[in-house]
């Protein structure tokens, strides 16, 4: 997600200045001075890209006057500028022109250069008009860092020194443990855990031990998965039109397991893109390859396969672009990219990597592969063997059966009876009906097709036969047992490769009806490193390996930039899905390069990187904004402090369930259905669906497991900015809207959590009201209550006690919200009143904020 204001009005005033090399502190609201020595990537490219490249950039078909300004030689060949001589350069004359026909950018572009931008361009030409490669396409350069301190701290502080800023002090321990729990496992610590951490003065390495404990906690995988699932657009439904379900949840569990076992990120990448093509492919890697199937699909009658083939190709290219490359690729579906060197040919060549995936284009998704534990696999093997055995015995009587079948055929044809499966009131399943239909046709036919001959035999032996009852029932029993067992197994749609690849054409202007474009083969974007793989057709495995090769300049930077955001609230380059020309030069390029190089050097070790980040002093600072920092670095790009931000939708839910004691924190399994307002799905169709909320533990599982219906995402999650996952989402927005208040106040999940928390306070807490409030506050916020807060809540408590004493039925009604059982009558008034106390606690800004 981008910040248009920050860019449009703030670029000069707010952001640009602090991204400069250390320079005198600027004052908010004033354009920073043009640096003495202008740098192309830092100062010039953003201006040219935004104001000029649209017509004078990489897209040849849209280029005006043949001039491109993204290439120095080409620009000079067109006499755009004379290095060293700004005044006589055409570029400067045109941007300074008063003539509306001559001025650049032209008025109809609605772009206008500021005086500062013009000055930058002048100074740049005067200083020789030197170009630099775009930073993210250059190899990753590891900066010099000392062994003696955390490299992140070293690099951050080096810059702070230059800016004349001091880091903030370390946060207090309660804040630190709360922050670590939130960032690493997405749950609040218990007061006991806080006490142990805060009160033990003898343990030198308690912070490190806490970090290690959390990194090996199985909820760590869930927390990391939540972000990854956004990126890959994981959802339980297909997305288009009927938005029907599909079997994908084992992939979610695969992601959780991968993070928990700290699978190296290169392997993780390869398994997802090409888990089916690996020499050592197994169930696990195949489930990983479900990634390729997570795109939007349709079942809409009347939809055109070619249309959706093109949509699906584009969807996958955008996914690779967003998740690994940090490049916006979508526009190249119709034309060469206007700002980056990504061409339409690159687009379709990248799409061609996926042309081998076997799938229906306009069709329901298949049931998918059975995903089995070791025990289940051996059980299935047993059942298969038993079935084969029974079948063998049945077939042993084949000759007799054949004779009997002939007699049966004669009899039934003459009798012209209707097969029982075809009777209007038959209870047979669809497969049986289909078989019977074929048999009926075959029996009537003068000349049977081979399919009909097979079907008749199959029908006779499975459904019709009367003699040999024992053999048959043994066989059928074995078959039923096997099938019942198989049906109960989890399924996951996975990638299967086919030799019959879909031909991929370059579509002129992205038009799928135009088949005049040439056929393309899989290829890597031409502007990125090209390994020597000549002489064979490239595969998805090549693509995956290329993405995580140590020479690749983008992947490690993209992943580390996203990881940074998880722990500081914002990326080092703030546009997480675009490290191209229109993205942002990282505020701290050295730091991003350090993280990227360390990530690769460590063997793509994710836990190592997380550990490195959270162990830094930079991470451990207070989030408090001093007036000085508010003025100089309001967006905290320099990390002279930590940032506070609201928790994600799922985490807010988990928090309430956890502190109320309702949370069922088991890992994995089919998606669950929390309470949802009636009729929320009423506009779904084909078929119409009624949402049935879970009636058991499923109701109290973590938000990560909530059923993800793309066209109607659960409204509580939606209110707190969970993405619909129709497109890959590198970064969630964080809004603050009234619907959030309505959810926390009125959604039965939160009302039930409030009454459960109230019950805990009364059951587990001390005796006096005052102490109970203090106890509850500690449970929810892990800090002592201030006197003023206690007074506020005591007052609130007595008001509600009064109301419920006057109206005990109302108390009872409140205590019936949710599945939890209603307590005995003598406690109603007290419990209902305390439910309001708990409700207030769950609604506090502090409760839902990580600071």
């Amino acid at each position, binding site marked *: 997600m981008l910040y248009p204001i920050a860019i449009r009005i703030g670029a000069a005033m707010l952001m640009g200045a602090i991204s400069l090399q250390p320079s005198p502190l600027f004052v908010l609201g004033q354009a920073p001075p043009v640096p003495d020595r202008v740098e192309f990537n830092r100062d010039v490219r953003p201006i040219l890209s935004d104001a000029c490249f649209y017509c004078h950039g990489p897209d040849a078909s849209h280029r005006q006057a043949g001039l491109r300004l993204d290439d120095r030689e080409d620009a000079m060949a067109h006499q755009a500028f004379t290095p060293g001589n700004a005044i006589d350069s055409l570029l400067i004359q045109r941007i300074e022109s008063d003539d509306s026909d001559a001025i650049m950018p032209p008025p109809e572009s609605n772009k206008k250069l500021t005086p500062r931008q013009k000055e930058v361009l002048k100074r740049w030409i005067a200083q020789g008009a030197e170009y630099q490669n775009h930073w993210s396409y250059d190899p990753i350069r590891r900066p010099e860092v000392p062994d003696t301190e955390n490299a992140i701290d070293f690099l951050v502080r080096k810059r702070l020194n230059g800016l004349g800023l001091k880091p903030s002090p370390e946060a207090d321990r309660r804040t630190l443990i709360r922050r670590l729990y939130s960032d690493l496992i997405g749950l609040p610590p218990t007061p006991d855990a806080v006490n142990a951490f805060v009160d033990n003065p003898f343990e030198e390495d308690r912070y490190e031990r806490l970090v290690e404990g959390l990194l090996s906690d199985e909820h760590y995988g869930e927390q990391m998965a939540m972000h990854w699932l956004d990126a890959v657009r994981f959802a339980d439904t297909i997305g288009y039109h009927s938005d029907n379900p599909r079997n994908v949840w084992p992939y979610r569990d695969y992601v959780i397991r991968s993070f928990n076992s700290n699978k190296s990120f290169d392997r993780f990448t390869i398994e997802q893109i090409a888990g089916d093509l690996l020499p050592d492919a197994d169930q696990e890697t195949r489930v990983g390859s479900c990634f390729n199937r997570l795109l939007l699909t349709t079942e809409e009658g009347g939809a055109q396969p070619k249309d959706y083939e093109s949509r699906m190709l584009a969807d996958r290219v955008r996914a690779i672009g967003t998740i690994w490359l940090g490049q916006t690729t979508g526009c190249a579906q119709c034309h060469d990219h206007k700002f980056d060197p990504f061409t339409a040919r690159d687009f379709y060549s990248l799409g061609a990597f996926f042309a081998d995936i076997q799938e229906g284009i306009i069709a329901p998704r298949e049931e998918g592969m059975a995903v089995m534990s070791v025990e289940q696999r051996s059980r299935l093997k047993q059942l298969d063997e038993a079935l084969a055995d029974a079948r063998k015995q049945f077939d042993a009587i084949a000759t007799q059966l054949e004779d009997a079948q002939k007699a049966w055929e004669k009899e039934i044809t003459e009798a012209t009876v209707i097969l029982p499966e075809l009777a209007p009131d038959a209870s047979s399943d669809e497969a049986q009906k289909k078989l019977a239909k074929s048999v009926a046709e075959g029996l009537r036919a003068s000349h049977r097709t081979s399919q009909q001959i097979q079907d008749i035999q199959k029908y006779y032996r499975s459904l019709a036969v009367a003699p040999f009852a024992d053999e048959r029932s043994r066989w059928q029993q074995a078959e039923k047992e096997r099938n019942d067992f198989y049906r109960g197994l989890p399924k996951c749609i996975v990638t299967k490769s086919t030799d019959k690849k879909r031909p991929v054409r370059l579509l002129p202007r992205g038009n799928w009806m135009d088949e005049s474009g040439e056929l393309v083969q899989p290829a890597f974007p031409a502007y990125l490193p090209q390994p020597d793989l000549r002489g064979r057709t490239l595969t998805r495995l090549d693509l995956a390996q290329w993405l995580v090769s140590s020479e690749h300049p983008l992947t490690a930077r993209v992943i580390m930039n996203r990881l940074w955001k998880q722990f500081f609230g914002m990326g080092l380059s703030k546009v997480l899905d675009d490290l191209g020309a229109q993205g942002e030069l990282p505020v701290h390029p050295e730091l991003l390069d350090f993280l990227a190089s360390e990530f690769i050097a460590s063997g793509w070790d994710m836990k190592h990187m997380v550990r490195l980040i959270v162990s830094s002093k930079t991470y451990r600072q207070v989030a408090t904004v001093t007036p000085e920092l508010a003025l100089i670095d309001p967006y905290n790009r320099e990390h002279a402090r930590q940032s506070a931000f*609201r928790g994600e939708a799922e985490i807010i839910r988990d928090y309430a369930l956890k502190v109320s004691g309702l949370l069922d924190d088991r890992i994995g399994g089919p998606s669950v259905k929390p309470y949802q307002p009636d009729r929320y799905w009423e506009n779904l169709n084909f078929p119409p669906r009624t949402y049935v909320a879970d009636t058991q533990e499923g109701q109290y599982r973590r938000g990560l497991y909530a059923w993800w219906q793309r066209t109607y995402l659960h409204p509580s999650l939606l209110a707190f900015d969970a993405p619909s996952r129709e497109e890959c989402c590198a970064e969630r927005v964080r809004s*603050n809207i009234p619907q959030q208040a309505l959810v926390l*106040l009125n959604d039965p999940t939160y009302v039930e959590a409030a009454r459960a928390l109230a019950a805990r306070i009364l059951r587990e807490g001390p005796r006096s009201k005052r102490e109970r409030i203090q106890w509850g506050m500690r449970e929810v916020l892990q800090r002592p209550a201030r006197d003023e807060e206690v007074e506020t809540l005591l007052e609130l408590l007595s008001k509600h006690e009064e109301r419920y004493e006057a109206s005990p039925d109302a108390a009872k009604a409140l205590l019936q919200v949710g599945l939890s059982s209603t307590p005995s009558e003598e406690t109603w008034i007290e419990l209902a009143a305390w439910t309001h106390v708990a409700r207030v606690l769950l609604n506090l800004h502090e409760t839902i904020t990580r600071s």
Partner: protein
Amino acid sequence: MTVPDPYVLQTLLGRRKMLARGTIGSVALASLIHSGTSNASDDVASSSGSRGILKSLPLPQRAKRVIWLTMAGGPSHLELFDHKPKLTELNGTPMPESFTQGQQLAQLQGEKLFCLGPMFPFERYGSQGTEISRLLPHIGSVIDDVCLVRSMTTDAINHDPAHMFMNTGSQIAGRPSMGAWVNYGLGSESEDLPGFVVLVSTGKGRSPQPIAARQWSHGFLPSRYQGVQLRSQGEAVLYLSNPNGVTREQQGIDVDAIQSLNRQQDLVQHDPEIAARIAQYEMAFQMQASVPELMDASLETKETMEMYGCEPGDGSFASNCVLARRLAERGVRFIQLYHRDWDHHSLLREELPLRAREVDQASAALIKDLKHRGMFDDTLIVWTGEFGRTPMSQANKGPIGRDHHNRSMSMWLAGAGIRGGMVYGATDELGYAAVENVCSVHDLHATMLHRLGIQHDAFTFKFQGLDFKLTGVEGAKVLEDILAS
């Protein structure tokens, strides 16, 4: 919070202090505060109506608000608005190949194609004798206030992409809807209602096409611009009602305590988001009162309800039209109604009159009612489906119907200085393709924005490094000819 919102920034710095220090000009500050927000948190301005990103409008603002009547499924222009006697002549004969050669069709692809004459008679209405269906006598009665466009085209031929295209100008999921764009640009005048409201009704017919919530999504714009669906059954707004056993007074006690504790925390923590949070609780609490009052159509006169042809709370399209007017009166910027079940691949003869009856009287009543209240001149009304239907019959889905069609469709606009009584554009003699004044969905969007005072090609939002526009990159034109003022 990632990037603080200008409002937050203001709180952070203290407006007075900033001004006193003279570090920022008051003009710059105002622009900082009022020019909308980043994606971050909401500003409190929305609790007293909110300013949009556009500080000044380049064009005169003829429309203060939009009421968009979406006939979901694709109503047949050939039965309703575009009379083709030639089609009657050729009824049952093969469709001339010159029309259809090399064209993509939806469910008729690869089928033998036959002409289907209009199944219902047309009649002339209004001072210009405009021909429209006898199924729409009420719309006929206000035809002099309406500009009928017979030359609209679209890019998509399936429902889901076609709706996306009509609402967001793109067939890719995840782009902002027009209602979100307009609120982003202009803000909302309502103090206690969302600026973009959606109402859905369903014909009493068969199985209607699904509608995805993405049709009113904020896409990449800040979340507060998303459309909020008001539902006629159950809670009008999701989670609007207090839990059982909690009175409004008690809800107020809790909200007061939450606000008070948040303020206490603000003194310790100095988190500017807290002020925004407090404002949102205030607005939520207000909405809990204002929405039920809004939804209570029993406050309307009997005459009004008769004019629209509905009973309070019956969930009909007509009821939603009454609500649309009530929303318009309360300052809601963008009101979009969906009426489902216009997808007549089959049963055209049986079903179309039913849909027509469900919307005809109320559509016309809305125009009359707004005129009566002096709101017609600054309200833009748009009536359209997501695509048209083929002049060829479709018989492979049961009793005869027509297939999806994107090369011609009819729609109408009214109010806000739109030229009344006009017919704009025309299709060929069989109604297959628009041939005169051909216009696109992007043209429609450009024209709608123009009525709102917004210059469409200068109205952008930076996303993924690109300046996105509602009207896309291919260029769009304002339909100047249909504007009276």
